[in-house]
């Protein structure tokens, strides 16, 4: 028989990690082993705790969802789409699947039989390692799902992101926290034991005179190799150290570190520059890296005494966001953590600046004041460091003293704003910052601003409303902010016509939906074939929800909290509110993901995205989300007929 032209299938396999690691002749032999199966949408492919898989399922077209059933609720683990696969854990462990796999779309899978899979695992190290790591990641997700960190399905925020893991983003150098504790090979065991106790470490690296690592001693080596064998403390350390040690360069990825640990079955890896030791990474460090610990970052912020010190922590914050994203956190959780960190950071900067003014002899704040966070910061919807939006409100001063008081707060604001800039928060291009004399004012002036915006409602006034009405007290006298909020609510109540203007303004941006579910993209310019996630997705939701919430004197500023309050007041149906929440969360996640990716490529973050670059599943979800937004705008239009 003529050789069967399996080229397309081989090509397809070669495009999949880790099949790309296999030599050509092995790849060419695979198609003969493969069978192809088809699963209509919603059919169950693998059953949780069913019989062990006989195949590795490679998705050729379509998508599947993995869910874990716990207490009669399906918890969404993840989606797998084209070029991905499932069933490996069950294949490797010979246990029943730990989750249900269901076709999310009509799905065609290539089925690679167990025997072939086992053969590849045995004979190809790269292939084997990929699955070993995948397995540990999956175990982690499963554990999280079972302990309930993931929201139950249906209520859950749809995460459709392939978790791009810390393993591929953090380098070995990033992980090294402090100078390693070292000793020389001829030093006595008792000396090294004392060193460990004094430094509070569990391991010491044995180095030669040129600081080149020779071996490593851990506490358990001390017990197992000295005490348990009847040796004495005068034993030279080189006779009990574990050697050789394995090293990586600082620029190597954590993936390689983990890889080496797995391959050589060791607990520590040395980081060396040239041959000289610069740090040590333990398995524990890697495990810690996997979890995200905002508390640690906040604690670090609190400990700082200089602006420069605070600025150094900013990268740790970014890393944390990335980790949160890959661990499947919802945008609300991410935004909450980011806001919390940014709040702490800003408060710290304000405290440091106040202190500096005192030290300069200018003295403490002359009257009580409140630092206001505005815009996305006010709504607690900051995801990465976005432009500053802030203002100062202070108590009405005694007549005649305003000039000096204004001067003090302006000076404070200038100090804070420039320090925030050092920490990576760009200046607001529109000048909406407390350092702008216009936005550093006493209560009376603020009340005057607000009432004139509401009464006059010029386009510029309305623009200001969308930023200032989302204010939130950050530090100082929160009563000032509360009083302003009450004033605002009364004013709107007295002047309901304003809401129609604000509503018209909110309908200005709309979802880019064309005829028949198509996405409308830019036709020309720098962003040709792209669409603006923020302007066409997020802003319409934020604006619409703001109008509805102001119409009911709701004090919350975050869009999702406002949404909840609106729903309680029955302005929107529960189902619709749920859809809006999902849509908002999805677009937000897409935006965060997009920004992080751009940052990695060192491109200036933009909100433009090419829908063609999204996975099929993401694109589908995006279209769904835009439809929800269109419905929300429809509601708004009905409630507040357009003003002329």
């Amino acid at each position, binding site marked *: *028989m003529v050789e069967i*032209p399996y*080229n397309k299938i081989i090509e397809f396999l070669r495009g999949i990690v880790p099949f790309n690691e296999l030599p050509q002749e092995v790849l060419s032999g695979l198609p003969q082993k493969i*069978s*192809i199966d088809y699963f209509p949408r919603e059919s169950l492919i693998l059953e949780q705790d069913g019989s062990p898989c006989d195949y590795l399922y490679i998705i050729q*077209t379509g998508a599947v969802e993995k869910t874990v059933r716990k207490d009669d609720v399906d918890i969404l683990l993840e989606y797998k789409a084209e070029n991905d696969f499932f069933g490996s854990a069950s294949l490797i462990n010979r246990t029943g699947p730990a989750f249900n796999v269901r076709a999310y779309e*009509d799905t065609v899978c290539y089925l690679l039989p167990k025997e072939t899979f086992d053969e590849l695992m045995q004979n190809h190290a790269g292939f084997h390692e990929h699955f070993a790591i995948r397995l540990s990641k999956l175990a982690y997700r499963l554990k999280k799902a079972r302990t309930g960190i993931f929201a139950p399905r249906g209520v859950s925020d749809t995460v459709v992101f392939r978790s791009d893991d810390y393993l591929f983003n953090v380098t070995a150098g990033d992980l090294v926290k402090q100078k390693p504790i070292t000793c020389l090979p001829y030093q006595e065991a008792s000396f090294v034991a004392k060193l460990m106790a004094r430094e509070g470490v569990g391991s010491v690296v044995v180095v030669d005179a040129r600081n080149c690592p020779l071996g490593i001693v851990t506490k358990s080596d001390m017990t197992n190799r000295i005490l348990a064998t009847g040796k004495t403390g005068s034993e030279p350390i080189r006779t009990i150290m574990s050697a050789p040690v394995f090293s990586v360069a600082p620029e190597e990825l954590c993936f390689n570190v983990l890889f080496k640990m797995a391959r050589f079955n060791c607990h520590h890896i040395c980081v060396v520059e040239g041959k000289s030791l610069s740090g040590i990474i333990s398995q524990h460090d890697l495990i810690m890296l996997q979890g995200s610990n905002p508390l640690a970052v906040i604690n670090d912020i609190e400990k700082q005494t200089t602006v420069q010190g605070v600025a150094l922590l900013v990268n740790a914050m970014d890393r944390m966001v990335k980790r949160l994203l890959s661990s499947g956190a919802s945008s609300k959780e991410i935004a909450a953590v980011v806001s919390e960190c940014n709040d702490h950071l800003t408060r710290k900067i304000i405290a440091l600046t106040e202190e500096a003014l005192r030290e300069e002899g200018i003295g403490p704040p002359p009257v009580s004041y409140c630092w206001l966070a505005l815009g996305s910061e006010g709504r607690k919807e900051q995801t990465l460091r976005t432009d500053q939006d802030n203002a100062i409100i202070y108590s009405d001063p005694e007549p005649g003293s305003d000039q000096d008081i204004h001067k003090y707060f302006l000076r404070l604001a200038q100090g804070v704003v420039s320090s925030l800039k050092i920490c990576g928060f760009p200046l607001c291009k529109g000048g909406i910052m407390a350092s702008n004399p216009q936005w550093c004012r006493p209560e009376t002036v603020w009340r005057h601003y607000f009432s004139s915006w509401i009464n006059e409602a010029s386009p510029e006034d309305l623009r200001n409303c969308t930023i200032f009405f989302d204010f939130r007290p950050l530090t100082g006298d929160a009563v000032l902010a509360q009083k302003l909020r009450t004033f605002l609510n009364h004013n709107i109540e007295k002047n309901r016509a304003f809401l129609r203007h604000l509503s018209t303004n909110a309908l200005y941006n709309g979802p880019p939906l064309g005829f028949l579910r198509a996405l409308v993209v830019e036709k020309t310019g720098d962003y040709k074939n792209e669409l603006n996630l923020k302007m066409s997705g997020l802003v319409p939701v934020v604006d619409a929800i703001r109008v509805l919430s102001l119409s009911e004197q709701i004090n919350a500023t975050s869009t999702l909290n406002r949404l909840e309050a609106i729903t309680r007041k029955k302005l929107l149906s529960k189902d619709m509110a749920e859809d809006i929440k999902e849509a908002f969360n999805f677009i937000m996640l897409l935006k965060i993901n997009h920004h992080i990716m751009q940052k990695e490529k060192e491109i200036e973050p933009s909100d433009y995205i090419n829908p063609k670059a999204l996975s099929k599943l993401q694109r589908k979800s995006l279209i769904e989300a835009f439809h929800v937004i269109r419905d929300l705008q429809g509601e708004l239009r009905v409630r507040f007929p357009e003003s002329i």
Partner: protein
Amino acid sequence: MLNFLKTNNLRKVYARHTGRDDMPEALRKQLEVKEAYQPETLISNNPFVIFDTETTGLHLEEGDRLLSLGAVKMTGGRIHLGDAFYELIDPKGSISTSSIFIHGITPDIASARPHISDILLKFLAYIECDVIIAHHASFDMKFLNHAMRSCFGFSIQNRVIDTALVAAWIQRMEEVELIAPESCHDTRFDAIAAHFGITANDRHTAFGDALSAALLFQRFINILNKNGVKTLGQLVRIAGVSIQGG
């Protein structure tokens, strides 16, 4: 009884055509096909062979001949890539088998390709008594049976299903626009495949097209099932191709 008469008839036709009475194994299998057909078998369990041919042109009458023959097998709705069939055919070699039996050599001995009759025998051995499926099957069957008759004196006995007929039936049932009107053979398949999101395999190799057709039929099984078409008999009624000539 009728089947027995028919079988006997095939033997006679073969003997008359080739001047021999020792039928090769693969041909003898053809005598069992009618007996093996069980209309009550569930489509979802039944084995199928999905095939495609490439020809030198569209007109058998003007001398166009088979160029290649590709096929895959499906059982239980699963396509088995390892059990595939692919042969290239020397189009010049379509001469009567009787002469080959007499001379013992094919006329085109220089060609590395086996003679059409050998390929047909291989194909018959491959399909056994299974129902065979192709897109616009009557076209492929015309060329195949022409070759069959010139080599062995009779046509392929297996039941033939046309996926284009299945598609047309589904279109009527589900009122979906599957087939672009007034389009030719290829685009029709492409249009249907595109509708079902089937990513193109190597188009225009008999194997690639057979695989695409198999992927299509895989989806059809599910849709047919939803519309109450569950047995082989029902399938043959809506999409069977009648075989002309003995």
